[in-house]
């Protein structure tokens, strides 16, 4: 066991993947000598050289587009998009090309590209540096969308994402980069079935009365809310989804069938967000087990606000508790 930050754990996972497979290459802006603006690639340029840790021109579409071409020759490029709000120049390459290549070639071409995205808010950043665009990608068939919430998951899931033969959007909750946790660096890892391994939801806390479904940065908020409401006599179960695509519907419905109540928490705007899909699935598959409507807590249908306002925009512990109160009325 080692104590690592989330950023350090992802760094260690990248290193492990690069040692395991010489075809793994990192591409991105400022990921070389600087080690990335969040230092997630720190030291890798020095140890693996500029051919495997490539500083690219400042062109996100170019990064993803050339990564697609390299992956067609058997490489496994891991692209870093510097900030969530900068992914949109690459949106076309990701959704129109990367997501569809395996399908349109009838399985003849695989494009195992990983796109790492520091995402979500809470760090007092300027505009376009705090967004949560995961639903846009989860809505696109052909992409896997995952997000670790803990250093242990950061370490393993980045390796699983790289080993997956499918394209993976790997969303890293940047506000959690400096959170520390125990990491088993010898945790069992198999390349086979890596896609499935990173897609199983994790029960982060057992509970009986209400299920809090969260992922990425919101897992900590949900756990804090569960702690508070325990003092008030409400037992909340917290599910860390890990994957947005595919959603682990089985784990969600299993928990909701037990608790009868469901509150979904994410930073992304609530309308048309991942919570909408989760609520619909729960209604379809656990309707007669529900004691209350499924509620969603998340960002508003506004652009991400200026940073002095972000703590009113983001799903706070208090807002999660408010929703728990509302479902516990039933």
């Amino acid at each position: 066991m080692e104590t690592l930050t989330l950023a350090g754990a992802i760094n260690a996972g990248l290193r492990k993947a690069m040692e395991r497979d010489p075809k793994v290459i990192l591409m991105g802006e400022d990921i070389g000598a600087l080690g990335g603006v969040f230092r997630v690639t720190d030291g890798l340029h020095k140890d693996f050289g500029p051919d495997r840790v490539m500083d690219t021109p400042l062109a996100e579409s170019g990064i993803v587009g050339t990564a697609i071409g390299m992956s067609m020759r058997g490489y496994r490029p891991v692209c870093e998009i510097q900030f969530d709000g900068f992914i949109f120049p690459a949106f076309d390459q990701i959704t129109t090309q990367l997501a569809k290549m395996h399908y349109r070639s009838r399985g003849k071409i695989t494009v195992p590209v990983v796109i790492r995205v520091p995402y979500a808010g809470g760090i007092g950043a300027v505009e376009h540096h705090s967004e949560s665009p995961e639903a846009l990608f989860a809505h696109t068939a052909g992409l896997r969308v995952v997000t670790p919430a803990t250093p242990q998951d950061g370490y393993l899931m980045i390796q699983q994402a790289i080993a997956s033969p499918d394209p993976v959007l790997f969303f890293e909750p940047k506000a959690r980069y400096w959170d520390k946790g125990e990491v088993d660096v010898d945790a069992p890892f198999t390349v086979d079935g890596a896609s499935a391994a990173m897609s199983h939801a994790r029960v982060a806390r057992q509970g009986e009365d209400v299920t809090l479904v969260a992922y990425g940065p919101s897992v900590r908020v949900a756990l804090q809310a569960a702690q508070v409401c325990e003092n008030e006599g409400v037992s909340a179960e917290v599910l860390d989804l890990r994957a947005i695509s595919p959603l682990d519907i089985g784990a969600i419905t299993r928990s909701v069938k037990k608790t009868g109540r469901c509150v979904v928490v994410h930073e992304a705007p609530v309308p048309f967000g991942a919570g909408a899909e989760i609520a619909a699935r729960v209604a379809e598959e656990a309707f007669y087990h529900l004691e209350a409507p499924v509620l969603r807590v998340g960002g508003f249908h506004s652009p991400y606000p200026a940073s002095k306002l972000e703590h009113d925009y983001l799903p706070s512990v208090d807002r999660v508790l408010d929703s728990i109160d509302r479902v516990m009325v039933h």
Partner: protein
Amino acid sequence: MDVHGPLSDDGVVRLLTHTGDRVEHPVYSRYAEELDDSTLRQMWREMVVVRAFDREATSLQRQGELGLWVPALGQEAAQVGSGHALRPQDWVFPSYREHAVAHLRGVNLAALLRIFRGLEHGAWVPEEHNFHLYTLVIGSHTLHATGYAMAMDRDGLVGTGDPGRDAAVVCYFGDGATSQGDTNEALIFAAVNNAPVVFFCQNNQWAISEPATRQSKVPFAQRADGVGMPNVRVDGNDVLASYAVTREAMDRARSGGGPGFIEAFTYRMGAHTTSDDPTRYRSKAEEEYWAERDPIARLEAYLTRRGALGDDFRAETEAMAKELAAEVRVATKSASKPPTSEIFDHVFAEPHTIVDAERAWFERYEESFTDAEGGH
């Protein structure tokens, strides 16, 4: 035509005039000299055969057998000339109008029509031909070509001096694509990485209804100057010159000399697609001007004058063209709808629970009708 900028053919490399007279060029003549009469005859035949295929595909669309067709009429010399400059180990990244290059790479043209009949999105195995799938979004594949070339370089396939090993990528696109951000990013990535890729821009004068002047103030080849990439303009209706400039650029790329940019100055003699109506935006006089510069007629005149195109060869070519057209017609009309289960195939390379659940649901849904009809 008294024009300047992108509409002018100033400075194009030309080895055959539009009347089929051979002219010399200080740099490129030597490449054309590699092409003996037998090879040139073969190139003429390929152009004739592909044009017959093209016309047949248009007929099939008119008869409702294809949803759409994208004619390449007029661009045969640019494609056959450049295509002949490729080695088997080179890779081609086409846009969607490179039917002659597809033919040269051994792609079955009848199978290619499956895309336009709505049977599948990609109708050949790229690895079997070193010919990537068509890309319909303008310019997107320029980045894939560049990344692929960067990977070839890493794989030690560049600059070894072994002509059977050294390889490069050629990427085809049109005048409209030069306005896309992706194309410009591809030029930058290729340049700074010294990638073995040749950007082959077929300037056919029209991006559907928009003339070249809506894309550029300067000849398209000059776009490459901004990234320090060698570039050349060529008469794209001259098969010899198209071969020569591609030979030179591919040789340089394979040997480690980096990327190049070719602007083939040509003309889309037909419509953009079968859904297009060029009479709404261009003149009869313009079409007549270019009809006099038909790439096939030009080579034919040259070969005929040399006595290198015998009646037997012509008759045999005509028969081959007819035979291909007939084959394509039969194959197209007999190609039936794929099973609905293909909707769910290959969405992901590894199992995905959502797709699996939807497939299972759809199968049950379809079976429910079978049961209702008495189990047949």
